[in-house]
């Protein structure tokens, strides 16, 4: 099986989109190509009533994946104005359903570090968690994603807690985790077909379990994905 980065992105996007079938609303932050694709996919195929809160406006209807999530033309196709402050209020009120969050470091509790990491004595400065601290703590179903999977990223305990919350799912290029309430930590929900339990285990800093393969994207999904992102920008977030 030859699996390209585009194939991997498609699997992740498809699985994210299907999680949105019963979602009331979704928000994604900046630089989030995969969630951006997943939301469009979900709205077109599964859940036309899904409310999309965007940084540039309410319920945008973009035709293509832009190079920037604040690209001017996204706001042209919004149903109403929306300020970031109001989106945060929505989440603080407990009214935000799904939020997509990126994590530079993700631990078994589902906590995220986007602040800084120490390699030995050296401090590596990260950009900061943007809205994550609030959204992870208050949205109903945070979905975390990462374009890379290794033991420096998936750790037992993050060095700094930028955002604490209970993820609904965690997406990586190797597998999908879900939060197990009984165990109080992440467990593997599915492993992508190009990976294996061994590979996940080797690259994860906490205990993992075996799990069934991630379902493949449908032809319909792939077709739509290609249409929204004909130039394959989506793959640039994966390693």
């Amino acid at each position: 099986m030859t699996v390209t980065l585009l194939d991997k992105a498609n699997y992740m996007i498809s699985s994210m989109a299907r999680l949105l079938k019963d979602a009331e609303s979704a928000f994604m932050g900046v630089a989030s190509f995969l969630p951006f694709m997943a939301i469009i996919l979900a709205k077109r195929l599964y859940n036309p009533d899904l409310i999309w809160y965007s940084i540039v406006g309410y319920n945008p209807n973009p035709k293509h994946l832009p190079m920037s999530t604040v690209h001017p033309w996204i706001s042209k196709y919004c149903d109403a104005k929306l300020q970031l402050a109001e989106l945060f209020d929505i989440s603080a009120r407990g009214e935000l359903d799904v939020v997509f969050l990126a994590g530079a470091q993700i631990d078994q509790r589902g906590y995220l570090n986007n602040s800084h990491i120490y390699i030995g004595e050296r401090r590596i400065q990260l950009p900061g968690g943007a809205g994550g601290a609030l959204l992870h703590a208050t949205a109903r179903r945070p979905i975390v994603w990462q374009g890379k999977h290794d033991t420096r990223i998936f750790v037992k305990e993050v060095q700094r807690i930028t955002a604490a919350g209970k993820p609904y799912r965690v997406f990586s290029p190797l597998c999908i985790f879900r939060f197990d309430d009984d165990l109080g930590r992440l467990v593997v929900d599915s492993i992508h077909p190009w990976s294996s339990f061994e590979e996940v285990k080797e690259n994860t800093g906490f205990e993992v379990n075996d799990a069934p393969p991630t379902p493949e994207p449908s032809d319909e999904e792939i077709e739509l994905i290609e249409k929204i992102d004909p130039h394959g920008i989506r793959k640039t977030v994966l390693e």
Partner: protein
Amino acid sequence: MKNMSVMSLEEAVDLIENGSLICLSGNLLYRIPAAFVRELARQGKRDLRVMKTAGGYDVDLLCGLGCAKEIIAGFVSFEAFGLAKNFRRAVEEGRVKYSENTCYSVIAALRAAAYGVPFMPIADISKSYFVKERGFKFVENPYGGGKVLTVPAIKPEFAIIHVQKADEDGNALIYGPWFEDVLMARAAENIIITTEMIVPKEDLRRDIDAVWIPSYKVRAVVEVPKGAYPGACPPYYEMDFEMMEKYASLDEDGLRKHIWEVKP
């Protein structure tokens, strides 16, 4: 108090004293006061404290050229163009203090300042490490139900806001997303407007539903076409992705050239 007028970019930047707390309009590469920021660097301003929810080119440039001593923000990055290298290096080397927040707490601090109250209650984000580092404190909810986290007011001395249109008094219009700009305008002590064009009052009034920055705190109105470049200022121009790719690869010498090459 009333010392506002139309002036040049140089004169407007001259109003900013070293060590000032300023906040910057827009988000990432969208409607940022880029020309103003370059002029801050050209004039060699020092020790600025810079506030923004999500900074990019603007914050990075001020860090890279030694103008900033503190960044109060939730996120500083170039999005698709990778990390903000100059910001990162300056923080790692201790030349700039990154007072990390979440965008939400930056907004709460501005709200408190805008409302003239000393703090704002917020949702409980106290598991985030920076809550302690920033000194955010709990208060007992006087109506029962336990403790409530708060954020102290932060009142910027200047909000620098780049807009599409303004009149000579500084009443200003924003097309498209506001981001935190209208809130900044409420919270700051003074406002400097850089605008794609200065238009007659009557023209602005025709678009009154977009005119949300009143003139009363505006100390300078500067006409700067392409003032957000390399950022976007719709409907007039988009981001210049090529320039950003080039910028992202500049070393410090390149950066120093950049602010003189890209004018204003």
